């Protein structure tokens, strides 16, 4: 197998190598790729959509349809992980673990212990050998809000700087994952349950798709945000700009939720009892 693989790769590599001489040089400004369609984008983005970040404009508007499906792909990945891994019911474990909220100490309650599942003083956590690491906990307490804020910033400022819904969503998701890693899965799912992550995930895509469909209802084509200009105070150009923002927010929500959802399922092997 190895040898076969090598031979195949050498042939394939040679084939690819042989055509490199026909392709334009790296950074060639006069290559067809840079002269056919892309100048249109660069030169017209501002007047079409008033978005300085050309990438965002293309992503969410000129080729917004791609992005709709990109979001759908992410969503289906979340759904797929859920579908493949989730094990809904499990037999109750021998012992439960609780953390005292004010001190952060861990309690081990044997089967039939007294502390109820829902308690204000205690919080049920994952398992015995996760130490309550003060340093990591504190760091995350400090860092997570800022990461979240940063993520929101990235989503909101996709028009002017790199970033946008997807990047921001991933960062937001990563912030929640960070919280899950530093604390434990159970306390994370209490804050953002699997159900809400699923709902948010589809909700995000629905925002995107709904914007597109709303455009149809408003008389423009699918995903043609200029249709939104029927709302007061919007001209077609700024309507496109706001349309892009709405869409980015949708993407952000969906991506956040789905990343978290995938993490829940991967880290707990579908039980959602105990994470990484």
């Amino acid at each position: 197998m190895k040898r076969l693989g090598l031979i195949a790769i050498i042939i394939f590599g040679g084939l690819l190598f042989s055509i490199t001489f026909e392709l334009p040089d790296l950074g060639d400004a006069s290559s067809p790729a840079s002269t056919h369609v892309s100048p249109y984008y660069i030169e017209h983005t501002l007047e079409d959509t008033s978005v300085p970040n050309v990438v965002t404009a293309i992503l969410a508007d000129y080729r917004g349809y791609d992005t709709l499906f990109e979001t759908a792909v992410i969503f289906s990945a979340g759904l797929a992980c859920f579908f493949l891994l989730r094990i809904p019911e499990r037999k109750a474990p021998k012992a439960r673990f609780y953390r005292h909220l004010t001190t952060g100490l861990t309690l081990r309650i044997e089967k039939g212990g007294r502390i109820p599942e829902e308690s204000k003083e205690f919080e049920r956590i994952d398992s015995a050998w996760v130490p309550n690491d003060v340093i990591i906990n504190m760091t995350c307490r400090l860092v997570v809000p800022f990461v979240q804020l940063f993520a929101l910033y990235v989503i909101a400022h996709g028009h002017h700087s790199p970033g946008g819904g997807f990047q921001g969503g991933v960062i937001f998701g990563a912030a929640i994952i960070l919280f899950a890693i530093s604390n434990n899965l159970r306390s994370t799912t209490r804050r953002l349950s699997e159900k809400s992550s699923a709902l948010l995930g589809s909700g995000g895509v629905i925002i995107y798709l709904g914007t597109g469909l709303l455009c149809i209802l408003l008389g423009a084509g699918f995903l043609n945000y200029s249709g939104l200009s029927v709302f007061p105070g919007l001209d077609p150009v700024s309507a496109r700009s706001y349309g892009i923002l709405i869409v980015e927010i949708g993407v952000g929500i969906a991506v956040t939720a789905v990343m978290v959802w995938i993490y829940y399922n991967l880290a707990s092997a579908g039980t959602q009892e105990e994470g990484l």
Partner: protein
Amino acid sequence: MGGMTEHLPAIIVAVPLLAALIVTVVWWFNDRLCFPLSVAAGLVVCGASANLFQKVLTQGVIEYRLGGWPPPVGIVFRVDHLNGLILVVVTLVAFLNLVASRRSAEKEFRDKVGAFYALFLLFITGLFGILITGDAFNLFVLLEIASLTGYALIGIGSGRASLSGLNYLLMGTIGASLYLFGVGILYVLTGSLNMVDIAGILPNLWPSSAIVLAFLLCMGGLFVKMALFPLHAWLPNAYTHAPSVVSSLVAPLTTKVMIYAMMRVALTVFTFDFAFNQIAVRGPILWLAILAIVGGSLMALSQRRLKKMLAYIVVAEVGYMVGGFWLGNKAGMSGAVLHIINDAVMTLCVFLAAAAITIRTGDDRLSSLRGMFKRMPLTMAVMVLGGLSLIGVPPTCGFFSKWYLISGGIEAGHLGFVMALIISSLVNVVLFFRCFEIGYFEPFMRGGEPHSAPVEPGYGAPTVQEAPVEMLFALLTTALLLLLLGLFSGQIVTRVIHQALPAVLG
């Protein structure tokens, strides 16, 4: 809603996507609503596709600009006779499958039924998108959504399913990436992603070997996705080990849609002249197709499991269509297109029947067919019809596409292809009649006791236990479709397919 018809192409894709999302939401609150919602979406899509097809028939090619941007800048949908027709069949097949899947989905995915329907809808969304998109890159994205959900649906099965699913995933990703690479080279050379636009620019660049490689990469990627013979390794296991309802969804649709994508890429992007005259790939691909037909058929012979056998038949059928297309003449291409729709229905028919049997017996070995003519007479009748269609017996649609394919082969003077088709038909005879024999001659056994050779006639006649009623409905409709497609194949070919074939073919 008169104004809405103009947006039909978008609606066809948006509705199942929206339904998938809503199903996901609704499922957390009430899981009984999932099925009706999905069926409603399926119905809407069926209606929309029929309507769209009608529009295409009257108005010619429909181009729908997404976001209102003109083609090379934005993405467009292009619906012509060919994909309009295939779209109708694909929506119909998907709908029938959706209806059929109810009982067993509830049984197999008790607590994840919403996710199942959502993935189902996402899967078909991807397929519809692939069919109508006019953008080379967009095709990739849609390809991925269809594949990704496909991997999940296949991997959920028990036993080796996840391994097969992962294999499929790896192969599928290679395929998609190769395609993406090919599109990348095209983009480097032309600077465009719109299929028609690329086709307009490419003739200036024909001597370039880079284009040939781009062509090979695109084709290679799609060949992997459609499981053309040497690249078919993922398919049989994936289809065998997937849950029954899934294999009856994936098997009829995936390969067919990929073959259509191949046609689309070869004809629209690279143009007929390039694909058939400028480069000499026609011969090798034809021989690959022949290998696929013969190899698939022969490997199907050695299988002991019903679904695996059917999966290998799918491999062979892929050879039919690829070969027919690459014959490069009118009859062959018509045959290939006709076979796409016929094969979608035929495969649905046999896979659904297999699913029904698997549901009732919990086993998909050939031996599980024992006594089935007595136990599930209607299912078996439909399966016989499907089998006959795959063999190519006249009143069924399989005969007609085979007719075109063989006459295309004769016209092209490619005797190898003709021989391969005939051999494969003969092998199909053996395959299906082996199944029928088992169902007919061997009595039903409970619990899989070894069967004793000579059997008293009428021994152990079991009670009739048909498939669930939804499945039966789907099965009978499919059977009807098999005959209708056969009877109307002349109309389909002259009024639809010939309209869309390249003008060079006359």
